[in-house]
């Protein structure tokens, strides 16, 4: 514990899948459970930590989120909430998917929650055909089967074509 306070100003270097390097303050990096575990298991901060699954653009967003949450005191929950909703506001589905993948890989629970919730909120009122395209799911029903499944839950389709 004492060492983490001493090392508060230390920085570490993260490397995105496309080779971009980011110098991150340690307390910001600790928002990620993955990085926290790596630091705990005696991984020297001089090393460059490769994040082979995360491109630079996504990593920049992720670190923006971590910075905000690491710096804000717990009393500013309202401010953080409004930051969170603004942060995701105009993001397209592709960017959200990248964020979910990155947050899942780096184990940043808060970011994972808000990004997944944002996707859920976006798709919940969409027709199932569109949802199929969004997630690239192959339709394995015959037309007859699909009609039967729909009939089973007819009330859930109120207002849908």
């Amino acid at each position, binding site marked *: 514990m004492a060492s983490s306070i001493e090392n508060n100003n230390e920085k570490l270097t993260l490397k995105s899948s496309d*080779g971009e390097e980011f110098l991150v303050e340690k307390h910001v990096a600790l928002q990620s459970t993955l990085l926290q575990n790596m630091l705990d298991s005696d991984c020297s901060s001089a090393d460059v930590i490769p994040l082979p699954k995360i491109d630079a653009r996504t*990593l920049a967003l992720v670190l923006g989120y971590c910075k905000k949450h690491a710096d804000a005191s717990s009393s500013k929950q309202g*401010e953080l909430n409004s930051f969170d909703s603004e942060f995701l506001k105009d993001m397209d589905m592709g960017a959200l998917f990248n964020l*979910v993948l990155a947050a899942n890989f780096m184990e940043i629970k808060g970011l994972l929650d808000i990004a997944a919730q944002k996707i859920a909120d976006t798709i919940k009122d969409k027709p199932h055909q569109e949802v199929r395209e969004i997630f690239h799911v192959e339709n394995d029903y015959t037309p007859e089967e699909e009609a039967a499944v729909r009939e089973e839950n007819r009330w859930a389709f109120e207002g849908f074509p």
Partner: protein
Amino acid sequence: MAQVLVFSYIDIVALLVGVVLEWVWGVLVEALQYLVFGQFRASNLPVGQNFIPAESFRPNEDQWLATTTTTTTTSCCSHSLPEDLVIDLILSRLPVKSLLRFKSVCKTWYALPTNPSFIASHLKHSNNCNTLASWNANIGPIFGLRGFNIFTLRSMLAFQPVNLNFGFQRKPDLVLGPCDGLFCLYWKPDLRDYPQLPTIALWNPATKAFSILPTSELDHPPYKTVDTCLVGFGFDLATKSTKVVKFVSFDTATRYGRIINCAEVYDLGSGSWRVLHVDDTALGVFDLDDPTHCMYDNNDGVFHWHAYRSRGRRVVSPPNRLGMSVELLVLSFDMSRELFRVTLMPDKYNLLMRPHHVEFHVECQLSLLRDSLAVNFSVRETVAGHGTVEIWVMKKDLYRGVMGGESFSYSLSHELTVELPCLCLSMGFWNKNDLLLWEVDIRSGKPFLYDVVTKQARDLVKASISRKSEICEAIEEGDYGTQCPLSNHVIDELIRSQYLLSEAANMHSDGNYAAAASGLQMLELAGYLLSLWLLDVCSAVAVEFSIELFTVGVSAAGKEEELALCSVVLLFLFAAFEGRARSASERFCDSVMFLVEMEWTLNFIWLTLA
């Protein structure tokens, strides 16, 4: 406030524009610098940014090219998520209605709503902890512990009053739950039924699935008469399975009038009943007429009933006042270990409830306080009417230590005593500090909340006005679909029914609406007017008129128009939540009482209160 807003705005600009654009810009500038000066300099990002490209960063030309290429591709390539992430992270956050619709996506998604691990993960995400209350004309208010997606405030206008008859002659006599998204419904047997065991069914309001539990061995017992039958309903935290437990006291009808206790547990996973061993023949149970005589502790998966035991061997059905040899207790059933446990109540209440103590009237309710079982004794002086609620909390470590039934000791500890502000009954804790009290009044009793710390009484409906700003904001943003309780469907209805507004105006000017419309039409019109008024589409005159219509409409409408009536009541409720009109809140209380008085068959009016 303004400062905070400005500050957060700057932050957002700095982060979104700063992070994305300046980084891209930085790459381009560096590229130019590289071309001009032949070497890289670390880009200077705004102060306060979370990342700083490393000083040692000296990529060669190939790396730079690679970076630019990737940047271009990330912004336009098609993305996808692995299936397990889609299911675990995203689908588990969807409302039930969307999930049922998305069963049509593919066969894997079809199976999700019945997959136990998916259900568990869905419940975890939908655990909003909204306190639920519902009115049921049979049994008064009933309270649930956990909300679901479909019952949150946001979708309040999408609430449908539910007909709980399910083909029976009457509504269930007891509704337990929700637990794990399910309700357990309990119909008492008709007197001519043999051997008088209740009909128990499980109901999932989200998927609309309903199933009556199969008969069991105890439906064909060797004893003639069922004295009482307790039912408990909960979730086995170990096997992740929903269970129903039945504790039956049979009267052997021998000379000694001996009672024999039997118990069975139903496991939703296996779909069948199993007989459990109960050895405590001195144990007696009360009829479950009062829903506050039982309580489920969701954290521990333990169901509790208010019960008693006799000090001797012989158990007699207790009259209202207990005999000398009877001790009050809490009977608990652990859903995982399938064990019954007994915890004795403090002895002074055994004395207080005995016949010679006529100067006190004592009632006992079970509720939850900070995730522990709380036993509330309402003690009222019979003459002076002065009342207190004495609250005892069951200590978990103690009752966990008590196995079987032999080594019980007092494991209830006195938590606090609340002086009651008026003549009222305690219904248990509504949330951390608020007791839900029911005013005792011959004419019209009503429920209210009483903060035991500040000693402030609050109206149950007005207590939720703190949610008002959230709803208003949503309406201002026009974000009806996600933020506001008005569903798209309702909005469409409203727009389609705009013409009714002009019709209403005509009727209002004539003053002759009673002749012009049937009761049902008047109710519908009242509903539309209220909705339009809530959306600021028409003036406040409309609300007065809708109240008139409502009053006339109710008397003309008769019992068949329950749905319309309920929807108008819900709109009044919504108006009360919104804090638009004081009269709306009063009107709502009146309406609910009206429904209760009329023994409305569609009596399940859901409220979500903060």
